[in-house]
């Protein structure tokens, strides 16, 4: 069975030598030490599903790799009474296969299931998705509708940033040199909540979204909406909360929502661009449609 590989000797043709440019700390302490020694020269790699594509396209040169894949602490998911902590190196595959995530954060679970392909989901991570900060990052709208917080480490210490304030532009965020996202903190609610996720792209698989929408509604004891979150992806420089539409839903029962009015506000509030994945006009129309279907879905849950 393994005959063919046995016949081939190690050839050492294209590779060999050179061992100094790849760092793989296994603990937080080790990570801090490397950050201290090499801060300015490091490129951090998580799943590599975006970074390596750009690197091999030679969009930029990477001299020193800092690989977070070996820090087992960053791969942990911890469930507490009042929150769930997801390590930044948790893959999309684990997120969407975990029953607990499906039960507690269905919008995030569905978005993780929609990322790329099995090959991308097995490597790509939640932390990578966050730090890449693409307006089309599939996990970002769900994180915003669940009021996620990000725990960030550096040599100076730790800080916690609201996901709502993390993204500042296309592929831009508040992270400074030498800072690493350690984990995502998702608060757990006692109240009932319902949500929906819609992703629209040119194909079903391996597609960067043309537009996406995450929705989460929290209800009080009388089934009135007491908190609402609507976030659209790929329709502005960052994932965008549509606060005007959120407000329209407050203190209403689901049956009293004027779906078309809410959808129109979402379509009006986004600031989409024309690109290879769709025109601005198309995105506004689809924003209307997917707001409609997301609200429909929540009503029918």
């Amino acid at each position: 069975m393994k005959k063919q590989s046995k016949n081939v000797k190690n050839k050492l043709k294209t590779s060999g030598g050179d061992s100094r440019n790849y760092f793989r700390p296994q603990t937080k302490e080790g990570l801090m030490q490397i950050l201290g020694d090499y801060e300015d020269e490091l490129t951090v790699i998580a799943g590599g599903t975006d970074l390596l594509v750009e690197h091999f396209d030679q969009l930029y040169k990477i001299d020193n790799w800092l690989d977070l894949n070996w820090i087992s602490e960053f791969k942990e998911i911890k469930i507490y009474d009042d929150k769930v902590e997801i390590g930044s190196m948790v893959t999309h595959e684990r997120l969407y296969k975990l029953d607990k995530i499906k039960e507690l954060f269905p919008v995030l679970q569905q978005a993780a299931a929609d990322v790329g392909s099995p090959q991308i989901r097995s490597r790509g991570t939640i932390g990578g998705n966050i730090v890449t900060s693409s307006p089309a990052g599939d996990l970002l709208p769900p994180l915003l509708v669940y009021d996620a917080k990000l725990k960030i480490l550096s040599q100076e210490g730790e800080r916690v940033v609201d996901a709502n304030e993390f993204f500042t532009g296309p592929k831009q965020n508040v992270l400074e040199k030498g800072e690493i996202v350690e984990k995502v903190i998702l608060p757990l609610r006692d109240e009932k909540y319902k949500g929906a996720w819609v992703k629209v792209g040119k194909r079903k698989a391996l597609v960067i979204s043309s537009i996406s929408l995450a929705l989460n509604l929290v209800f009080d004891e009388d089934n009135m909406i007491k908190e609402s979150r609507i976030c659209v992806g790929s329709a502005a420089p960052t994932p965008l909360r549509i606060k005007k539409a959120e407000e329209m839903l407050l203190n209403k029962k689901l049956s009293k929502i004027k779906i078309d009015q809410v959808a129109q506000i979402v379509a009006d509030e986004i600031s989409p661009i024309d690109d290879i994945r769709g025109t601005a006009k198309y995105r506004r129309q689809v924003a209307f449609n997917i707001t409609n279907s997301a609200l429909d879905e929540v009503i029918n849950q």
Partner: protein
Amino acid sequence: MKITLTVNGQKREVDVKPHTRLLDLLREDLGLTGTKEGCGKGECGACTVIMNNKVVASCLVLAPQADGAEIQTVEGLGGKEKLHPIQQSFIETGAVQCGFCIPGMIMSSKKLLDDNINPTKEEIKRGLSGNICRCTGYIKIIDAVEEASRKMKSGGEG
């Protein structure tokens, strides 16, 4: 830097650079040219291998990231004298046209069937959603996975 990995059940030690791709390690250093390079961007699935029981695009894995890993490539499934039921089924159903995508298709099918010996058509489509066939022979490829599922259920694991 030196890394050690297990490829198709055999321990291999290879000297690599940090930016060597797992794909090149397999093809160039170990001579396992069954794994193909298509797009080199993780979009086509031609370079799919199984690493630590997960399907990965070997063009998007750095060789040092595979240090200590367990890798299965198409060469590990079976050879001319004894084909794996998945390989046999691809031949029998005529799922192979130009053949370039097939090693990746077969590795994704292997992972799919290892996890779920009895997949529905939808589950097969989802399992193979990261693999592109530009001859567009998808229907027969799905037939092949269904046939492989039948063969493997009746005990013919290669």
